[in-house]
């Protein structure tokens, strides 16, 4: 007869409010095999755990059920405690009676909650009776990290990991690292020049002997698991030999062909052989193969003629490399919602309606106007500029329902930069709320209003149209209750920050989750903000959701600490949730082999003493098996079972129903 203990947590009043935990404890005590039950205020607290451990020892329990919060919260906590008390940790099971019972059934009589808790606990008890002792699996760790995305978050992560003594590869899609931050003019609330603080870090990353930069590259395929990822990276053809190019610039000076500059968001042109911006790292140009006449129709080739070190190679092809990593940091960043998404603001057709990022380029000393504020249509200095906040944000009908978080601050910054550059100009800001939580942020916004004279109007703009060379803004000031019309020279939209196109594909390649906006899911939004549910893959920066530079940098550093912790020993332990083959009943039909998503099942040769192969049977590679259980269902003779989720455990739970 098993000796089972049941611990029902009140979670303060979180569970107790709708579940009579004492009654649950009393009733479950009557079940066969249950020898100890108790209800306690906070099982996860240290006195709670102490009494848990004591009860295990005192009652010589061989299995414990904790009916408390979701196993995603505290399964580890209690399993660790059970182990400390001498139990195999897989003899500890959690019943989820908070997230899936007490919090979702608001019955004041507590009947519904109590009944359901009892049911659920009974199911867990019966399941527990079928649990087997399991031991963790140890696997080797490749001490080499991959950082996907070379923006500020990725750079910070790479620098910190490298400073911790481990090797890092940064994969960046663009020809240069730097990301969106490289585009910014100055940064709130300190007004540091963005490039002044970013470029030293870019250079440091380039020169660091533990960091390799794979620019103009993308991740194609990810295999393996924590500690042992095998990643295929596509290095797109740059048509320039990186080892010999000196970055002298002769080629792009001489190149006679131009295209819209992606980096300048269409505000100016770049050459067809180009670096995205002058401080690019690495300072090696690439050829835009979709526009280069030499590549397209074998004409021109001027760049190759003027190149001193003969670095131009028109025959280069995309290259696939496969490398091994122990951990992956995802820092793929964000984009702004395109202006064409805003119907009432002219669908991006009104030239003088620009995005906040375009304004950054206008205000940047290295931008297309050298830092002078000029409106795109006629290059004149705009005297009235209207800034529209929440363009696309907090608009669940046509945009995104969330707040983009950084726009309040950068719009305040824009009005300041504008006033500093156009002394007789007037800035107007349409806002719904000003969200300036952050150190020195509120003071910064007040400064924009009080010192730099920005006119803040609380209301949304209904419509923007052109009339007689002006941009007419029709909106409301809800504080006075009036309609407002402003004849402006230029409009700046604080456009919503959205995930990158293809963010979902990247997530699928990596096997991590994402929300409906294609921002990546943290393992836990509060307590595991940089982890994903896929062990060994971490998240930093705006690929998770809107955030500002300080936050992105913090997350970069946070992922680095996670990676370094993982790399601190040569081997790591893994949950033993893996499939196992019963060699007596395996039919060798190989359905499991075919259906396994991980190529974790091998055909094992069974030999007799003389070494002759007498049979072939399926065999699960513990290192590769991730424990999904697809093979278990594929196996008709039930010769495979999944540890931790065995047929017997599931059966016991269903049978209790």
């Amino acid at each position, binding site marked *: 007869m098993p000796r089972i203990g049941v611990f029902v947590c009140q979670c303060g009043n979180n569970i107790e409010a709708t579940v009579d935990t004492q009654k649950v404890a009393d009733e479950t005590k009557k079940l066969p095999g249950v020898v100890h039950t108790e209800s306690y205020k906070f099982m996860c607290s240290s006195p709670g755990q102490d009494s848990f451990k004591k009860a295990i020892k005192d009652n010589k329990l061989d299995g414990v059920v904790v009916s408390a919060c979701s196993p995603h919260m505290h399964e580890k906590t209690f399993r660790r405690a059970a182990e400390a008390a001498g139990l195999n940790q897989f003899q500890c099971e959690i019943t989820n009676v908070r997230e899936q019972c007490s919090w979702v059934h608001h019955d004041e009589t507590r009947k519904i909650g109590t009944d359901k808790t009892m049911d659920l606990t009974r199911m867990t008890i019966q399941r527990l009776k079928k649990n087997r002792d399991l031991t963790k699996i140890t696997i080797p760790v490749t001490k080499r990290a991959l950082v996907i995305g070379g923006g500020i978050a990725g750079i910070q992560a790479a620098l910190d990991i490298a400073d911790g003594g481990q090797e890092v590869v940064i994969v960046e899609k663009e020809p240069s690292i730097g990301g969106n931050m490289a585009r910014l003019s100055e940064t709130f609330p300190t007004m540091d020049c963005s490039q002044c603080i970013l470029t030293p870090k870019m250079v440091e990353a380039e020169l660091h002997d533990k960091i390799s930069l794979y620019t103009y590259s993308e991740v194609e395929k990810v295999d393996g698991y924590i500690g042992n990822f095998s990643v295929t990276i596509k290095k797109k053809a740059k048509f320039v030999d990186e080892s010999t190019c000196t970055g002298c610039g002769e080629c792009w000076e001489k190149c006679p062909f131009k295209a819209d500059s992606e980096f300048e968001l269409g505000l100016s042109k770049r050459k067809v052989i180009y670096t995205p911006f002058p401080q690019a790292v690495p300072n090696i140009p690439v050829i835009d193969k979709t526009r280069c006449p030499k590549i397209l129709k074998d004409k021109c080739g001027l760049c190759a003629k003027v190149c001193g070190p003969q670095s131009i190679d028109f025959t280069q092809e995309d290259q696939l490399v496969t490398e091994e990593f122990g951990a992956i940091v995802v820092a793929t960043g964000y984009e702004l919602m395109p202006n064409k998404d805003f*119907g009432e603001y*002219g*669908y991006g*057709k009104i030239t003088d309606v620009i995005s906040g990022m375009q304004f950054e380029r206008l205000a940047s000393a290295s931008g297309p106007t050298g830092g002078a504020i000029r409106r795109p249509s006629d290059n004149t200095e705009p005297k009235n500029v209207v800034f529209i906040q929440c363009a696309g944000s907090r608009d669940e009908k046509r945009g995104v329902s969330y707040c983009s978080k950084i726009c309040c601050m950068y719009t305040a910054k824009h009005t300041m930069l504008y006033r500093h550059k156009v002394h007789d100009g007037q800035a107007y800001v349409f806002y719904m709320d000003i969200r300036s939580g952050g150190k020195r942020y509120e003071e910064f916004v007040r400064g924009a209003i009080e010192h730099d004279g920005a006119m803040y109007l609380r209301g949304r703009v209904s419509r923007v149209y*052109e*009339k007689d060379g002006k941009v*007419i803004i029709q909106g409301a000031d809800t504080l006075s209750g009036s309609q407002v019309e402003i004849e402006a020279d230029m409009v700046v939209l604080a456009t919503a920050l959205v995930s990158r196109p293809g963010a979902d594909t990247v997530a699928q390649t990596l096997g991590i989750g994402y929300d409906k906006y294609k921002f990546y899911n943290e393992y836990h939004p509060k307590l595991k903000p940089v982890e994903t549910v896929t062990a060994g893959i971490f998240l930093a920066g705006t690929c998770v959701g809107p955030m500002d530079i300080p936050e992105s940098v913090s997350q970069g550093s946070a992922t680095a600490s996670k990676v370094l912790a993982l790399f601190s020993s040569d081997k790591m332990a893994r949950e033993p949730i893996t499939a196992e083959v019963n060699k007596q009943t395996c039919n060798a039909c190989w359905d499991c082999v075919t259906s396994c998503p991980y190529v974790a099942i091998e055909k094992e040769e069974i030999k007799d003493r003389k070494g002759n192969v007498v049979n072939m049977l399926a065999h699960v590679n513990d290192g590769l098996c991730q424990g999904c259980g697809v093979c278990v269902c594929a196996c008709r003779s039930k010769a495979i079972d999944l540890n931790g989720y065995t047929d017997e455990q599931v059966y016991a739970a269903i049978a209790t129903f």
Partner: protein
Amino acid sequence: MKIPYYPGCTLNTVAKDFDTSAKESARAVGFEMEDLEQWNCCGASFPLTPDNIMGLTAPAKVLSEAKKAGDRLTTLCSVCYNVLKRTNKVLHDDKARRKSVNEFMEDDYDGSLDVVHYLEVLRDDIGFEKLKETVTKPLEGVKAGAYYGCMLLRPFDDIGIDNAEAPTVMEDMLKALGATPVDFPDKIECCGAHLAMNNKEVVQRLSGNVIASAANEGAEIIVTTCPLCQYNLEGTQESANADTPNVPIVYFTQLLGLALGQDAANLGFDNNGGATEKFLKKKGLI
């Protein structure tokens, strides 16, 4: 191709000319509009309160009749289009309201009709390319401002026949007729609609804005799709003070008929106020 057609009250009476020119034009480009055998007023307003079942029954009756004639129904008047199409959608999507409405009807109707505006037939069935080929008297040199108003565009999810903020279907039609469309910001603003009944001041102001906006962008003539817009704009034009620009207002089927070679005498320009005829004469079109 024959399409059942719902004339509606206004186009069957005071604006009969618009209706006949539309039918003639249809014939010229290759389709036939067949009046429903039985029809009643659509109510001229879609009930904005969802609990107003009675407001749905009149249009539901029309739709139910139309279903007997075929799977599609076309209209000319923007309001009729709005009311019928929205009612149709409610009856299609909302089982509870469908049931309530059907309790008041002889034959049950399930919202399976496809309600289309005349402009949609021209655009999607005929095609403006084909229309262009049919034109016999191109409206050359006519700078026309297409005025959409509300009912053809909003609410976009339920009825919008074109982009709600930047529609182009009328401009495309005008282009096909040989005219030069003029885009103006107020083309999607309201004319004042039924406030004509008790609030002339608002109508004059709103319609006045529309006219001024069109004139400001260089429109010589404003083209409407809704008989009520037509009435409001015309009325505003007539009683306008000196600084309102004098821009003739025409219904789109009038221009259509003219370009397709119909006799100008039958197009009802004489009811549009003197300015229209004067303008068309000046352009050598009549």
